[in-house]
């Protein structure tokens, strides 16, 4: 069986590593007060839809693996185009894969940059038409849109954060 000849030495070495950690800066942050910058490409739990750019081609609805996008169009014979009469996303079914944003040929669809968007009722998760528009509360994320990503704040990396704090000490 195993010999316990040197019992204590290995544990002592391990304890020195643990004790050294006492003097290191923590890697956690105090979340609601102290916020880290999330990734510029974050796929937030919402979709941003632009009514002006959307042509109603329904490529997004076909690309969605969950079938969470419902789009209804009506022919506008006067202007010779399609009008989008209903654009509805059931974010309860959405898996935030971002395939719809990648599929959109007219840059009318974006992932959202916000993440604190929990709802109390399932019915509130179904978003429709102008509720999907971009606004200061609902900024668009840089996912698949490098031009938007360049304007967003740089992501806070845990590996950087520690070095920054060390410099200050």
């Amino acid at each position, binding site marked *: 069986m*195993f010999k316990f000849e040197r019992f204590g030495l*290995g544990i002592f070495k*391990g304890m*020195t590593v643990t004790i050294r*950690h006492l003097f290191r800066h923590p890697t956690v942050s105090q979340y609601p007060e102290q916020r880290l910058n999330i990734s510029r490409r974050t796929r937030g739990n919402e979709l941003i839809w632009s009514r002006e750019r959307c042509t109603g081609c329904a490529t997004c609805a076909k690309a969605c693996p969950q079938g969470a996008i419902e789009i209804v169009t009506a022919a506008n014979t006067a202007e010779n185009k399609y009008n989008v009469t209903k654009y509805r996303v059931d974010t309860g079914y959405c*898996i935030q894969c971002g395939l719809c944003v990648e599929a959109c040929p007219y840059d009318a669809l974006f992932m959202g940059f916000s993440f604190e968007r929990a709802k109390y009722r399932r019915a509130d998760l179904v978003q429709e038409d102008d509720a999907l528009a971009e606004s200061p509360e609902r900024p668009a994320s840089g996912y698949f849109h490098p031009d938007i990503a360049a304007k967003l704040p740089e992501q806070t*990396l845990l590996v950087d954060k520690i070095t920054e704090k060390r410099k200050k000490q």
Partner: protein
Amino acid sequence: MTTTEELTLHTEPFVLNFGPVHPSTHGVFRMRCTLDGEVVLDIEPVFGYLHRGVEKLAEERTYTGFIPLTDRLDYISPMSNNLGYCLAVEKLAGIKVPERAEYIRVIMAELQRLANHCIAVGSMLNDAGAYYTPFMYAFREREKIIDLFDMVSGQRLTYNYMRIGGVSQDIPAEFLPALKKIISRLKKWVEEYEVLLKQNEILLARAKGVGILAKEIAVNCGISGPVARASGVKRDVRKDDPYSIYDRFQFDIPTGEAGDCYDRYRVRIEEMRQSLRILEQAVPQIPGGAVKADVPHLIRPPAGDAYAHIESPKGELGYYLVSDNSIAPYRCHVRPTSLINLTALREMVKGWKVADLILIFGSIDITMGEVDR
């Protein structure tokens, strides 16, 4: 005079259920254990609590639409799952992947191996009773790797980054400097982790010689990955059947001799070092150019079938696809690593105590999402 045998207290064998929600069962796994006192006589694995019918769901989705679901199979290492599936579709449709995308894929797959082994060794030691120190240290490093995945793909768990014919987006400008920092940081961390535990007498006593998996059984059961390599089976898909651009990098395949819990732990630590070696070689070599081949969103591969396998962090992961020239796979089958690695559990735990059973189970490193599919 009474002999020792007469004095030994014998109890009636009884059946005890472990799981499905026991914290040590790494998900929703149930073991029906037959115990004699504290000695494990036999176990019967019961699973299926997480079964979602993913293979069947693939038949209702487009080839691209199934990629986000592969994330959810082995949710500890989704990048490898993405890669395995995309390789299978590319084989089926005969797609050539651009050079830059191949390098990005290798970098992601190796980072994923590091992130997976962080959890594997951390949770194994947690099961051994080391409680939270090594677990937290391992998770801290994994979070740093996940920062990188978040940067390129926008998610921290279900990355959905690989695409048929490449990757979804190019890496941002700040990725490579951050990756270099992480590589040097992880090198230091692996050494630190070794000091913390390598000579720890309690770990050695708990893990050395415990749960031995013989080489013959490992081969016969089809065990792969670090579990098989710890038993001395020198098999790695990256070397034996090179996929992507793995033949361009130099790395070794670490193997163990005894096939016990300690060897499985050591093999994973060594594999982390080798992964860092591959990353160091890959970073300066990244060429420019496109990151995705010209593949339509609704791809229609010609009728036929294809099987592609990769060395996922847990072992050999394969995807078998049958196409009937439509936009969805006619049939999809996953060759999961965890399920097949679980088949040897019974051989490994017989005769050991209940506390050892937890450790042996933890040393296999399974994810229930992959077992039940």
